[in-house]
């Protein structure tokens, strides 16, 4: 009951935050040089003043900025993200069309990085100071320091061009006529390279964090208690240290998960992945105001939703939260 209430309150606050974000973004985007009419006219290969003026009127760009803002905010309040004149479709449709691809990519990368990162972190902390530890930490540091796009380029070169094992770009085999399971397998094949390159960096982050956290928790008193019980080291690590060490990792993961939606611009570009990040980037170049604003709004909403999810997960792991202390 009380929980439902607080969640509701939180959602309300989130909605207000979102609105504020929308307004700020509105000004941000409109501060950029150029406008969608000029871009569209420019791309037409020939244009005259009349055409640009027509386009501006059509997009409502001839009105004063505050009127445009009010219209926009009004639209948002009715859950209407507006219309993309450039793409000739409602922004919501455009976003929904791209969202699955992005989510598949980023969630896969997220889980790969989280699971592998935690596993490696645990492995490294268990053999702290030994060769395995140095190897894992060294590799992680290398991943951490490698620019993502560079790793992506190299991965395509090796696995796609040289070895021919995996498709180098795209979301699925175009026009393959696959359906159901075959299609899933096909998408999976396309997914491997981008998800791995996207995941490497965060894997390094999680690995370092898990390792540090494990070592820190291992110093705590209750671990000594567990040892005094005569428990085997592996049990202690799994049951006592790991669970406690995961708490900061969960916080970080929550933060990162929120950024997933808009955070994959580079990967989506290099791998021609038809996701939201690229939509944002391309819309930005075209000053497709409504689309950029829509993408930002959706990703901000994701951040907020993931924050709430993180809180819930945190609560599941840590009984101290949510009970009367």
């Amino acid at each position: 009951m009380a929980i439902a209430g607080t969640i509701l309150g939180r959602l309300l606050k989130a909605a207000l935050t979102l609105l504020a974000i929308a307004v700020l973004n509105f000004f941000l985007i409109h501060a950029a040089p150029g406008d969608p009419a000029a871009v569209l006219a420019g791309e037409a290969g020939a244009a005259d003043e009349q055409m640009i003026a027509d386009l501006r009127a059509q997009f409502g760009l001839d009105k004063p900025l505050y009127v445009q803002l009010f219209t926009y905010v009004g639209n948002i309040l009715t859950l209407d993200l507006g219309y993309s004149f450039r793409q000739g479709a409602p922004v919501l449709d455009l976003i929904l069309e791209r969202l699955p691809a992005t989510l598949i990519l980023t969630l896969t990368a997220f889980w790969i990085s989280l699971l592998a990162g935690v596993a490696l972190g645990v492995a490294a902390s268990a053999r702290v100071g030994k060769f395995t530890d140095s190897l894992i930490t060294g590799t992680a540091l290398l991943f951490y320091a490698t620019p993502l796009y560079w790793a992506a380029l190299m991965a395509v070169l090796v696995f796609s061009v040289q070895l021919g094992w995996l498709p180098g770009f795209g979301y699925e085999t175009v026009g393959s006529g696959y359906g159901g399971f075959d299609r899933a397998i096909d998408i999976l094949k396309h997914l491997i390279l981008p998800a791995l390159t996207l995941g490497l960096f965060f894997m390094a982050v999680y690995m370092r964090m898990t390792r540090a956290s494990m070592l820190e928790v291992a110093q705590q008193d209750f671990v000594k208690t567990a040892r005094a019980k005569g428990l085997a080291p592996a049990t202690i690590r799994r049951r006592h240290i790991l669970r406690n060490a995961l708490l900061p990792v969960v916080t970080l993961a929550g933060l990162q998960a929120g950024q997933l939606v808009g955070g994959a611009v580079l990967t989506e570009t290099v791998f021609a992945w038809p996701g939201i990040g690229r939509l944002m980037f391309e819309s930005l170049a075209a000053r497709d105001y409504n689309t950029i604003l829509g993408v930002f709004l959706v990703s901000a909403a994701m951040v907020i939703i993931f924050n709430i999810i993180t809180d819930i997960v945190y609560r599941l792991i840590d009984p101290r939260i949510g009970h009367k202390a």
Partner: protein
Amino acid sequence: QQDGGRLDLIVQPEPPGLMLGLVQNGPTQMVAGQIYEGLLRYNTDLEPQPSLAKSWEIAEDGMTYTFHLNEGVTWHDGTPFSAEDVVFTTKFLQDNHARFRAAFSHVESVDAPDANTVVINMKEPYGPFINAFEAGSMPIVPKHIYEGTDYATNEMNATPIGTGPYKFVEWSKGSYIHLTKNDDYYIDGLPHIEDLYYRVVPDAASRAVAFETGEVSVLPGGAVENWDVKRLTEMDGVCSTSKGWEFFAPHAWMWLNNREGPTADKRFRQAVMFALDREFVKDVVWNGFGTVPTGPVSSKTNFYTDDVPQYPHDPEKAKELLAEMNYDGTPVRVLPLPYGETWQRWAEAVKQNLEEVGIKVDIDSADVAGWNEKTASWDYDMAFTYLYQYGDPALGVARNYTADQIKKGSPWNNVEGYENPELDKMWAAAAIEPDNEKRQEMYTEIQQQIVEDVPVAWLLEIEFPTIYRCNIKNLITTGIGLNDGLRDAWIEQ
């Protein structure tokens, strides 16, 4: 000739829409050129060929154009096509197509005396008019879908309906556009290919990979950076051609701001021309493709002459000119075209050339929107661009040099601000001169004068090689190449 098969092509960038009457940028033309058709096509010598019109007559005095349309043509949704659609199209495009509007400003009226005949009456004779009927210049749009609606927001824009050889199937945004064979096409036996997939791959290197791995088999001009062209064409079973750009004859130059700054001085502009090593750029940046131009008119365009003042790479000469005008070292801003690495390298090369003769250069940066904004509002010193010539100086060249084309807000007109009333008169006269020999004389004079004045720095007649697998036959048959060429193409299995 074999039927069937599937063709994967690159389209870059992803088109904003496929309704050719509303959007006419390059990628849209390339895809929608298979869906929509014009009245005519042009072969690689720019001679008119039948398309929707099976024959046509031009009156002696050049005042009347009569088109006889093919019979039995239907729209993709089954509705019969008729002359009414053509008449409607001329109205539709008035609102949405600047180049059409300019060409049709010479037109008095358009009539459809019967279902298969269209008659255009002119206000005055207009020499280049017969070059204005291909799909990009005048795509015929369906009256039954658009009449009485708000064109821009018509829902059918998402599923374009044309008369062309291929029908729209699906557009997976960010991924591909799928067209399929129009089985009811009015020319029996055409087209040959079953499915077309236009693939969207935003990164140039990935596009090269896509071609290498066989995922796509046609790279239209400009799809990969020039440095990759050589490597790709040397692969087994790969062909390339420079054909298919004759109608456009893309011509690259730098606008030099004639209004203010050092570039307002003619000697400075000439110095720039002498300072540039255009052959080097052609060889290195463009991998040897293209031709160094002599002036505003491409050597592929009608009425070209090379009898003009020459500007070879001569840094000493440039320095002399700069000394003569007492150039004070004011830095100039160079605005590159935001179309990829090639253009960026080009700007860097220009910067090096100019700095060698003592001109201080800052490269300005802008994305597409910023570039539009800056050129359209004349906020630049030198700005890269390239424009199509559409086969005739009156269509594709005059707009960049006449005073009546000095209008803020568009990057397609006389952006440099060149004013020469003498020449303005001559441009006007040449456009409506019916006698081609006289036209040639006039254009020669114009070219000589303009090259002397250097309003812009002409850089290159661009050549965009199309790279494709050799088993694709008849890929490019017209002067606009891939834009309408797939009607005749077939794949050897």
